[in-house]
């Protein structure tokens, strides 16, 4: 059973548009939700993260919207740039500082100039 699901599998937007990446989860004990970004040829790096005490987390052009009741969250990238083209992984974790992250399959984002 896939604990963390992401959709769409791939997404193409034009430069300047808002890209919306979706994520849902099964385990209600998850209490930390990071998004990692993977550029081709590089290693994944933390982009932004949220805890269920908040329903929104913003960092520049990146915003996480979180719906605890529906066990869903989404990453919005406003004013998308070609340099945002990458694979975005939603992940979830129970407990602090365990690093036992469960990752989704990722969404491949392509931003056309």
């Amino acid at each position, binding site marked *: 059973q896939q604990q963390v699901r992401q959709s769409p599998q791939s997404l193409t937007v034009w430069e300047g548009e808002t890209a919306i990446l979706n994520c849902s989860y099964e385990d209600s004990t998850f209490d*930390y939700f*990071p998004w*990692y970004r993977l550029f081709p040829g*590089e*290693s*994944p*790096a*933390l982009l932004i*993260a949220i805890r269920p005490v908040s329903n929104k987390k913003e960092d520049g052009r990146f915003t996480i919207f979180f719906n605890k009741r529906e066990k869903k969250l989404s990453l919005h990238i406003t004013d998308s740039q070609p340099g945002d083209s990458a694979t975005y*992984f939603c*992940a979830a*974790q129970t407990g*602090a*500082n*365990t*690093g*036992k*992250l*469960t*990752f*989704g*399959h*990722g969404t491949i984002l392509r931003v056309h100039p």
Partner: protein
Amino acid sequence: AQTIHQWPVAEIKAVGSPLSLGCTIKGKSSPNLYWYWQATGGTLQQLFYSITVGQVESVVQLNLSASRPKDDQFILSTEKLLLSHSGFYLCACSDRTSGNTLYFGEGSRLIVV
């Protein structure tokens, strides 16, 4: 800042041959260490994690083993490779100062033929 060095960068190995992948962390004291595996186009699957020297916990059974001979070293190995072992292997670390953030190495690409 920590640095995570993985070796080898890439390998092509025959089915049934042994494998050893290494990971060395510099700049962190007593880190938590993790091995992740990504099949082509797949999600990041946690394989092992270790919170201290000599202690390794298996998360997924893939006919692989891991050891932590030193505080800053994590080794992934098997005596007999399978075709299904092909993929991208990532070493990661975290510690109390980084909270839940995982820092990934640059990975080792393995092709089993």
